[in-house]
C-alpha cells in the first residue's frame, strides 16, 4: 500500500509516497509540485540582470545563488578572452558573506527544524526554542549586510569584484555582531568555548556538555540514528573556496572531479507530478553538503564519527553542527584580513562585448550549486541551475535510488521522515 505524506516547512513543500512492508519503508518516491521557471525567466535578459534575478531563486540561500551567478559570468568573460582577476579584498568579502549565509542557514536548521523534529521523533514533551534560531540567524544576517547591503536578496557582486567599499568602521561593526553571535553559540548551543569545541576529536567529548548540542547528540543516539539513514557513502564537493576541498569520495577514497561530468535526469514520481530533476555525476548519485565537505576536507571529528557510524543520519547531522562551529571560526579569520585600502572592483569589458559560455560553482549551505550560462552579445541565451537538493533528494526507480531514497529504506515511516530532513531540504531551490 502506498501512503502519501506532505512534508512542510522545507522552504515550501514536498510530498513523499511511501511503499511500506511490515511497518518498514520498502521504497519511497518524492515529488516537488511547485515550479517557477527561473531559467526561462532569465532567457533574453541582460546577463548582469542575472545578479538581481537569481538571488530570488531562494529566500534562505539567495546569496549562494548570487555568487554562483557572478562566477558564471566571470567564467564567460574568461572564455571570451578577458580573464578577471579579483582583488584580495573582493575575494575575502565574497567569501565572508557566503560563509555568513551558511551560518545563518545552519542556525535556522538546528533550532527551527532539527530540535523540533527530534522532539517529535522521541515523543517527549521537551520545549523547543525555535526563536533562538531566528535570533542567531538575524545576527549572522547583520554581519553579512555590513558588506552586502541587505539580506535576504543581496546583490552586491559584479564581474570584477564587489560593489561595497567599506571602511574599517563597517569591518569593526561586523566583527562586533560576529562576536555576539559566537558568544550566543558558546553559551546556548555548545555549552563550552568555540576553541574547546573545535579541539574535540571524538563525539564522546560532548558527553560532558550541558547544552542544546548535547541534547541533540544524545537524542540522536537514543533514537538509533547512528545506525540508520545510510545513503551510498559517496560524497561530492565541487565549489572552490577557502573552506572547501573539491573532490568526490567513495567511502574514504578521494577521486578527482570535473564539473563537466555533472548531469541531470528526469525524476521518477509515479504517484504525483513533480518538477524536480535529479543531479548525478556520470551515472552515480552522490551526497553533497556539510558531511561531504567535512569528509573531503578531513575534519578529524567527522572522520572519526564516520569511521564508527559511516554516513548515518547521526553523521550527517553532526557534520552540519561541526561545520557551523568551524565556519564561525573561519569567518572571524576572514574578517581580520579585509583591507579597506584595496580596490573593491576592477571593471571588466562592457558585458555587451561578451559572447561565451560560463559556469559558476559554489558550495551553498546544502552543497554543490551550479549555474551555467550562455551569453550572446551580453544577453542571456540559456541559463541552467543545478541545486544541492537535486543531488540529495532526487527521486528515481527502485533499481537506482537516490541518496535520500536509499537512506529511508528499512526504517519506520516516522524515522524516514526525520531522516529526510537530516539532508536539510530546500523545496524552492529544487524546482526553481
Amino acid at each position, binding site marked *: 500500500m502506498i501512503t502519501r505524506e506532505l512534508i512542510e516547512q522545507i522552504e515550501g513543500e514536498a510530498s513523499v509516497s511511501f511503499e511500506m512492508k511490515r511497518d518498514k519503508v520498502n521504497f519511497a518516491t518524492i515529488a516537488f509540485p511547485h515550479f517557477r521557471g527561473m531559467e526561462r525567466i532569465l532567457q533574453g535578459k541582460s546577463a548582469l540582470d542575472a545578479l538581481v534575478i537569481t538571488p530570488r531563486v531562494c529566500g534562505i540561500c539567495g546569496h549562494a545563488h548570487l555568487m554562483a551567478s557572478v562566477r558564471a559570468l566571470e567564467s564567460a568573460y574568461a572564455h571570451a578572452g578577458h580573464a578577471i582577476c579579483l582583488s584580495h579584498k573582493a575575494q575575502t568579502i565574497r567569501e565572508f558573506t557566503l560563509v555568513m549565509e551558511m551560518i545563518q542557514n545552519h542556525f535556522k536548521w538546528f533550532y527551527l527544524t532539527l530540535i523540533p523534529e527530534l522532539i517529535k521523533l522521541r515523543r517527549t514533551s521537551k520545549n523547543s526554542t525555535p526563536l533562538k534560531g531566528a535570533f542567531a540567524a538575524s545576527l549572522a*544576517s547583520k554581519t553579512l549586510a555590513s558588506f552586502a547591503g541587505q539580506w535576504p536578496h543581496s546583490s552586491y557582486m559584479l564581474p570584477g569584484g564587489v560593489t561595497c567599499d567599506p571602511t574599517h568602521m563597517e569591518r569593526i561593526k561586523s566583527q562586533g555582531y560576529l562576536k555576539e553571535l559566537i558568544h550566543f553559540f558558546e553559551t546556548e548551543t555548545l555549552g563550552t568555548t568555540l576553541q574547546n569545541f573545535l579541539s574535540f576529536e571524538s563525539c564522546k567529548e560532548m558527553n560532558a556538555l550541558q547544552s542544546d548540542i548535547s541534547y541533540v547528540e544524545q537524542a540522536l543516539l537514543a533514537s538509533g540514528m547512528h545506525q540508520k539513514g545510510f545513503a551510498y557513502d559517496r560524497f561530492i564537493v565541487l565549489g572552490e573556496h577557502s573552506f572547501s576541498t573539491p573532490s568526490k569520495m567513495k567511502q574514504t577514497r578521494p577521486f578527482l572531479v570535473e564539473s563537466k561530468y555533472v548531469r541531470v535526469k528526469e525524476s521518477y514520481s509515479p504517484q504525483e507530478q513533480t518538477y524536480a530533476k535529479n543531479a548525478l555525476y556520470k551515472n552515480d548519485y552522490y551526497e553533497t553538503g556539510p558531511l561531504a565537505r567535512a569528509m573531503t576536507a578531513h575534519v578529524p571529528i567527522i572522520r572519526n564519527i564516520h569511521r564508527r557510524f559511516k554516513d548515518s543520519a547521526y553523521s550527517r547531522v553532526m557534520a552540519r553542527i561541526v561545520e557551523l562551529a568551524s565556519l564561525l571560526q573561519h569567518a572571524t579569520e576572514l574578517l581580520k584580513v579585509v583591507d579597506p585600502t584595496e580596490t573593491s572592483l576592477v571593471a571588466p569589458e562592457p558585458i555587451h562585448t561578451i559572447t561565451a559560455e560560463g559556469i559558476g560553482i559554489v558550495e551553498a549551505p546544502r552543497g554543490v550549486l551550479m549555474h551555467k550560462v550562455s551569453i550572446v552579445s551580453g544577453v542571456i541565451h540559456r541559463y541552467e541551475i543545478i541545486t544541492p537538493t537535486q543531488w540529495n533528494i532526487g527521486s528515481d526507480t527502485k533499481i537506482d535510488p537516490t541518496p535520500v531514497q536509499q537512506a529511508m529504506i528499512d526504517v519506520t515511516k516516522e524515522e524516514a521522515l526525520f531522516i529526510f530532513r537530516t539532508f536539510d531540504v530546500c523545496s524552492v531551490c529544487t524546482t526553481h
Partner: protein
Amino acid sequence: MHLKTDSKPTLLWLQGVTCNGNTHSFLNLSSLVDLLASYELLYHPSLPSLQTFENVSTCKFKCDIVVFEGTFDPLLQLNNISVHRILKHYVQSAKYVIAAGSCASFGGMFKASAPERNSGLIFNEMLQEGPLLYCKEKVINLSGCPIHPEWLGYTLSMILEGEEIILDSYHRPVELYSYLAHHGCTRNEYFEWKIDSKMFGEKEGCLYYEQGCRAPMTHASCNKILWNEISSKTRSGMPCFGCTEPDFPRADFFTTKTNMSIPEDVPLGVSKRSYLTVAGIAKTFHIKRLEGKLIDYKRTD
C-alpha cells in the same frame, strides 16, 4: 478599520508562487519574540504553528489576519487544493489581509512564471484586477522584494494597537511608503551636485545618472530605517532596483536609460524642465572635495 478582540488574534501565513524571501526577511525582525507573543500562529512556513499546512489547506479554520506571500497564480495547487479556494476561505473571516512583498502586492518577480494569469492580490502591476478586488478594503500591500521586516512589524503592531493605518493609492501604508529610497542615501551630496559614480565599487558618486539607480523614483523607507539595521543597497554600492514599485522587475538593472544623456525618469514629482535647469547649473561648478576620493588613506608622515 481596526481589530478588537479579547483573545490573541490568529494569524495565518499563506504562500503563492514564492522564493520564501519574505518569510526569511520577517525572521530578522528585532522585536520578533514580543510580536509573536501577541499572536496565535495558525500556520507559518517556518515557525511552530497551531496547525499543519495539511490541516489548514482543508479550509476548516478561521483567522483574523492573513499574510500572503508570493504571486497569486489561480491554477496553483497546494496540497492538491486550489490556492484560490484556500485564500478565499480564510479571507472571509479575516479582518486584514497583508500582501507581504512585491509578488503578492503587484505580481512582482514571479508574475513572469505565468504572465497571462499571475498577479498580486488586488493589483496586476498597476491595474486593479487581482482576485481580492471584491474585498480590497481589507488588503494592505507591503511591497518590496523582499519585504522589510520592520514594515510587517509596524503593520502587525498597528493592528494590535487598534491604530488606523492610512494607505496610499496602491494600498501601502503612507508612513512607510511616502519616503523615497533616496531619503537617507549617503550619496545625496553627489546627487545634489550632479557628480556621478565613475564606476562600481566606490563609495563616492551618485548611482542615478549611469548605474540605473531608481531611488529618487521609488517609495520605500530603506535608507531611513536601513536593512538588517545596518546598511542598504545604495550604501553597499548597488543601485536601488525599485523593488517596491508595481513595475518591478524592470530590465537592465545596472544601466540608466537616458535620452540625449539625460535620465529618462527624473526624480518623482519634479518636472523635467526644473530638473534640467538645476542639473545644468549644478554641473557648472567644480567641487574638488567631491571629485576626489572621500577618504585619503595615504599617510601624512
